[in-house]
């Protein structure tokens, strides 16, 4: 649970963010700016995706799904890495905001994973002739989605936030160790998806007319992710405050009745 006041400021700017009240104030100030920035970036990315980037010589206009699909897939992995980092923060340093961040990031990460799956499926229907193929990369993203849902289900199963935080942190780390193993096993099991083409040794293999809109789009979605994350963290802090106020109120009522 987040205890206000008990989180004393030790030193430095990052340490001061451990205070939920201070964090909420900072989040409230930055959210409009970040939201505006992501709106501008996404508008530019949409313009470039539709009017600047050429249609692919084989895939035609369907290639434009990529400008949504690739950022969503990248954020699905980024969000899980963030949750695993926050899990370490919960277990090792007992940072009061680490669990808030992980809990807020899980549904957003799950949404981006879902978006990556749906856009991939929409692209796969005209390209591969099927909505779904049991190809290695699709399958491992689907399993990542299931792991996200398992984390969310675990949070929802435990009433007390402090205990939920540490149990889910262990589960998140177990999942984090397993994601590469699952990726490896599923790769071994079947391979059809194209190999990595943006981040690889020797530079990207795609043309700059497509790469630049893709990067702008990825930047826009990443800023959007941070905006949503900050907003969800604020909500979570308020939700926990309301919970502790309700418990205090219930305690006061019952003790008044008893006396």
């Amino acid at each position, binding site marked *: 649970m987040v205890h206000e006041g008990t989180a004393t400021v030790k030193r430095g700017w990052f340490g001061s963010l451990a205070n939920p009240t201070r964090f909420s104030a900072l989040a409230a100030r930055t959210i409009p700016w970040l939201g505006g920035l992501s709106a501008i970036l996404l508008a530019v990315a949409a313009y470039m995706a539709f009017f600047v980037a050429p249609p692919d010589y084989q895939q035609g206009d369907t290639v434009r799904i990529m400008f949504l699909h690739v950022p969503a897939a990248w954020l699905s992995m980024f969000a899980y890495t963030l949750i695993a980092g926050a899990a370490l923060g919960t277990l090792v340093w007992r940072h009061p905001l680490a669990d808030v961040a992980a809990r807020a990031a899980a549904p957003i990460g799950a949404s981006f994973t879902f978006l990556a799956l749906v856009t991939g499926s929409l692209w796969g229907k005209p390209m591969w002739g099927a909505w779904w193929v049991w190809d290695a990369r699709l399958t491992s993203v689907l399993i990542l989605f299931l792991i996200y849902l398992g984390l969310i289900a675990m949070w929802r199963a*435990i009433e007390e936030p402090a205990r939920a935080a540490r*149990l889910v942190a*262990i589960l998140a780390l177990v999942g984090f160790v397993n994601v590469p193993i699952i990726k490896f096993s599923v790769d*071994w099991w079947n391979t059809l998806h194209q190999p990595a083409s943006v981040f690889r040794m020797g530079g990207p293999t795609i043309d700059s007319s497509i790469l630049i809109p893709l990067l702008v789009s990825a930047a826009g979605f990443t800023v959007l992710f941070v905006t949503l994350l900050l907003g969800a963290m604020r909500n979570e802090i308020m939700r926990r405050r309301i919970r502790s106020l309700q418990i205090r109120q219930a305690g006061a009522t019952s003790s008044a009745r008893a006396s």
Partner: protein
Amino acid sequence: MTGRALSALTVRELRLAVRIGGSALLGTLFFLIVVTVVPFAVGPDLKLLARLGPAFLWIGALLASLLSIDRLFQADTDDGSLDLLMLSSTPLELVVLVKCLVHWLTTGLPLVVAAPVLGLLLDMDGMQLLSVTGTLLIGTPALTMIGAVGAALTASLRRGGLLLAVIVLPVTIPVLVFGVSAAAAATGGTVPALTPFLVLGALTLASLALAPFAAAAALRVGLE
């Protein structure tokens, strides 16, 4: 002292498993029923059943060891004996390991013994039976260890059973992939059979090394 405590714990767990109220062999019965039910869904075509045989046996073993593991720590949490185990000087990680060993002896090992008999129902030939039994022998300890982490995470929850399956099943996919492909590769195929066998062994060893720590950490949090 630790050695005596652990052997006493092993005897206690074995007794609890085989006496009335224990769940030894219940997993094997479930395994038998799963393998019996599947042909009703697939049809009585023996060629098809023989081809799918390793997959059926592995799915059956996965579900049987998963369904039997949810009480691994829950019963001890409910009656308070887990508190005593944690108070003792024996490291909790070793306690977890002993409990997993007994769970495997009473659930995993019977599955391995039953697998060739059930394989006959699916018209599998000698080599297939041997390979499936071998992969189950190597792979079922990993299922127990991974399941134990889920059991420890859900031990203090009131409705942990379904949640356990939801959080554990995705993590068991690598074991399933390499178990089935090792069994299939042993009876022909393009891949040398030794590779998946070795990876399966590696998964089991890694889970034996890592899972006790994760499970013990989860138990400590659960009882806070």
